[in-house]
């Protein structure tokens, strides 16, 4: 048995003890081969933490009322004691910035370091989505650029004009992402230089697109297999854009006829930031599960080596238990599936089935069961997102432990139906359904730009590909109103199911609706 020589006791901390703990955690993390960015650990006050929360953790952000609203909400929740401000602030940047709050106890500081500085940090550095979509080295620079640019716009064009533009962009920011292309890395200086060029070039391009009344070339006229409606072939140029566009903000930035160059740049800024947050929206379970697994492992190692005392580890266990608690669906505290709980359960079970596989595990995970757990973890962390991670690694044991069950809600049926529970017949279906529940493509309505009527009234048509008859919420109207502000001409939205338009929305509203 190791003799306990704790680095510090009690709940007070100071920089020496933090440094020493950090060094020990780093040593252990290295033993587990966790690959991380360098850590920049900042000690901040409660107010600063609330500030940081309000700006989604970005150390620099442009000004907008919605962040103020966020701040007030955080402040209110914190004052009422509904919310602890401790765990979760770490920024995907290089160096990786994590915040420690001044008033936390020593245990909390150590826990946050293990969780954020080694858990999340290694996830940011390793996971393929983050590697593809974000550039940790340039994000801070870009934020600085964005803040400066928007502040300049406010001075030049007035706060209200910029605010309205940002409102419109924020409404569409979830649709400001290229899902399949990798964005190129950029820095602030580079961005400033390129921004000027882009302004000129972009405007020129838009001008070409909207140039004049299109003049069909003469031979086209002669060879026309003209249809009756359009003898001159004026509409023969095909649909624009030729393919539906999923990145609405990109399309607006490049094609909206009336936006001024600075407005296009603001659209671009919102789009770039949305892209930066895109991986986080898709890896919540994995990311939290990973970080929680590692803080649990590292804290226990610290205890095993006698570096923390019993008081600290008990305090830790209490806090950890609260974090991974999953209330049942009928509990008054139920608020959806707790990503910490689910992620931690999957990773913990993954380790178990690598080290002590059962018959069931060998059947379900023939390749994984009994493999080297550390290598399997690395593979899982690097190559998956929530959707595929659950599909791949959610084991029957975790389904049983959490007593997951699947309910089908069909508005054509009077009753809900329990479609699958945690039994032999149900495992696959539950896993499938849970995975789908985390798929971004299912969570968010699939809406794309279908056509821009560049030869006629310049109206823009979007298509919503409806899934299982699930309609759009009523927020659709304010959103297309925002879209209309950006586009400058009428906006139509069609909900399509099985190639049939089932519902149409438009902005501005047709006259009779307005009178009604």
């Amino acid at each position, binding site marked *: 048995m190791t003799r306990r020589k704790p680095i510090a006791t009690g709940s007070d901390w100071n920089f020496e003890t933090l440094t020493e703990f950090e060094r020990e955690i780093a040593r252990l993390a290295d033993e587990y081969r966790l690959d991380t960015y360098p850590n920049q650990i900042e000690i901040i006050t409660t107010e600063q933490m609330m500030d940081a929360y309000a700006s989604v953790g970005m150390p620099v952000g442009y000004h907008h*009322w919605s962040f103020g609203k966020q701040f007030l909400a955080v402040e209110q929740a914190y004052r009422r004691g509904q919310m602890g401000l401790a765990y979760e602030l770490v920024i995907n940047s290089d160096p990786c910035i994590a915040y420690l709050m001044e008033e936390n106890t020593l245990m909390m500081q150590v826990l946050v370091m293990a969780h954020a500085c080694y858990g999340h940090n290694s996830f940011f550095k390793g996971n393929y989505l983050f590697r593809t979509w974000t550039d940790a080295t340039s994000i801070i620079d870009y934020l600085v650029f964005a803040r400066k640019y928007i502040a300049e716009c406010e001075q030049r064009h007035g706060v209200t004009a910029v605010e309205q533009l940002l409102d419109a962009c924020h409404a569409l920011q979830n649709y400001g992402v290229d899902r399949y292309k990798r964005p190129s890395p950029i820095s602030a200086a580079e961005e400033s230089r390129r921004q000027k060029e882009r302004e000129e070039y972009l405007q020129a391009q838009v001008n070409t697109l909207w140039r004049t009344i299109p003049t069909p070339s003469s031979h086209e006229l002669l060879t026309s297999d003209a249809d009756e409606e359009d003898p001159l072939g004026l509409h023969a140029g095909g649909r624009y854009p030729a393919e539906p566009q999923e990145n609405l903000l990109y399309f607006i930035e490049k094609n909206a006829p009336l936006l001024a160059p600075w407005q296009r740049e603001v659209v671009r800024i919102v789009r770039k930031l949305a892209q930066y947050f895109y991986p986080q929206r898709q890896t919540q379970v994995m990311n939290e599960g990973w970080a929680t697994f590692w803080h649990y492992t590292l804290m226990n190692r610290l205890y095993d080596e006698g570096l923390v005392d019993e008081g600290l580890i008990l305090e830790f266990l209490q806090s950890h238990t609260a974090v991974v608690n999953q209330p049942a669906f009928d509990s008054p505290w139920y608020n959806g599936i707790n990503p910490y709980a689910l992620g931690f359960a999957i990773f913990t079970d993954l380790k178990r089935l690598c080290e002590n596989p059962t018959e069931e595990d060998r059947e379900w995970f023939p390749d994984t069961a009994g493999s080297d757990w550390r290598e399997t973890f690395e593979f899982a962390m690097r190559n998956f997102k929530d959707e595929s991670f659950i599909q791949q690694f959610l084991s029957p044991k975790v389904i049983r432990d*959490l007593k997951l069950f*699947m309910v089908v809600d069909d508005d054509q049926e009077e*009753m809900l139906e329990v479609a699958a529970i945690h039994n032999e017949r149900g495992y696959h279906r539950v896993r499938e359904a849970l995975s789908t529940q*985390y798929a971004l493509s299912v969570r968010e309505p699939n809406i794309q730009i279908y056509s821009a009527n560049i030869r006629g009234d310049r109206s823009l048509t979007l298509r919503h590909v409806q899934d*299982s008859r699930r309609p759009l919420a009523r927020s659709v109207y304010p959103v297309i109103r925002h879209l209309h502000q950006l586009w400058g001409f009428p906006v139509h939205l069609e909900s399509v199911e099985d190639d049939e338009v089932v519902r149409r929305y438009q902005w501005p509203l047709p006259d009779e609706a307005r009178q009604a």
Partner: protein
Amino acid sequence: MSYFIDRRANAKHKSAVNRQRFLDRYRTHIKRSVEEAVNRRSITDMERGEKVSIPSRDISEPVFQHGPGGKRSIVTPGNKEFSEGDRLRRPGGGSGAGGAGEGGASDQGEGMDEFAFTLSREEFLDFVFDGLELPNLERKALVDLDEVRPVRAGVSRDGVPARINIVRSMREAYARRIAMRAPIRRALREAREALEAEERKDPVLRNPSRISELKEEIERLEKRLESVPYIDTYDLRYNNLINQPQPSSKAVMFCVMDVSGSMTQAHKDIAKRFFLLLYLFLERNYEKVELVFVRHHTAAKEVDEEEFFYSRETGGTIVSSALSLVDDIVTKRYPPGQWNLYVAQASDGDNWDDDSVTCRDLLIKKLMPRLQYFTYVEITPHAHQALWEEYEGVAAEFPERFAMRQIVEAGDIYPVFRELFKRRITGN
């Protein structure tokens, strides 16, 4: 590799701008809440923030979302008794099932109906006084000001030792030393060179008297060089202070109230709120606000706050007694050159018959010329009496500085107060 940075000393309130933008954007909503709060709360209570709620739909940030309906499957934890194929009633009726099953998918879906937050005390009062302007707030004109404040005004050659400007003095000394030593040094150098030249000569050609002359000269110069003082009284510089006339930042508010038998406690409560509003308002505009409470029936008396509001008196009413007491106090304790004077009077409108004319004369001739502002509120549902009519004459004489309104019940106070101090857009 890791490093720690202590950011605690950095600016907090990084969100202040965003917070302010939010408040500006929802100004009308917030103002409505604030006005309700002012009417509801006891005014002694004004010194704290206020919880404000705004309907969530008014401040939502819309995004494309799935609405209720269609077919979907939901996975939830905590199954206890269900088996496959069980059918359940929809919880909460209709499509409410969504709330339970959203999982991490949407945290906006089941938002509260009200977005609640707390205004700080400062913000709250800003909203209370939004659009209000203190009458004649242009601080008392500089001409008739007795109040002065010493301000720094460069450096001077004389002053008291306590105000020596060390840096400037040392710099002067240094400059003087350079200036005074330079010619001596030059002469010294020349003498030394001459001496050296003399000594290098062939012994036969040396001039001994010249050498001793030069040696004496060098000695003399060295002494002179040493005698240049390191610092001289001539070098000393002092921080200069001059007295600058100051706009007065002090105000005194006279609360004048009728406590005769006809004033009930309800009347007094209304009056109290009015006084307190005015007090808060002044407090935000002046560094120092003093309160003087004058109550009267047939005779006037200066009292403390407790007695002013809560002791009961009976008898008739002579308003002029209070006005002349105010005039006395002003003369004795608050010279108008140093104080901004405000009078707020509350009464139910009763007065001894002949006295109203006296009041009017007193006001026009003596009091009004010295006051910043005079407000009169009449707390009565009944028709006006002589006092009101006479006061109308005063108001006609001093339209900028005299205001009067009628209040019927507590809810009227705030609107009346706002109206009295409405920001004058025209006029100045």
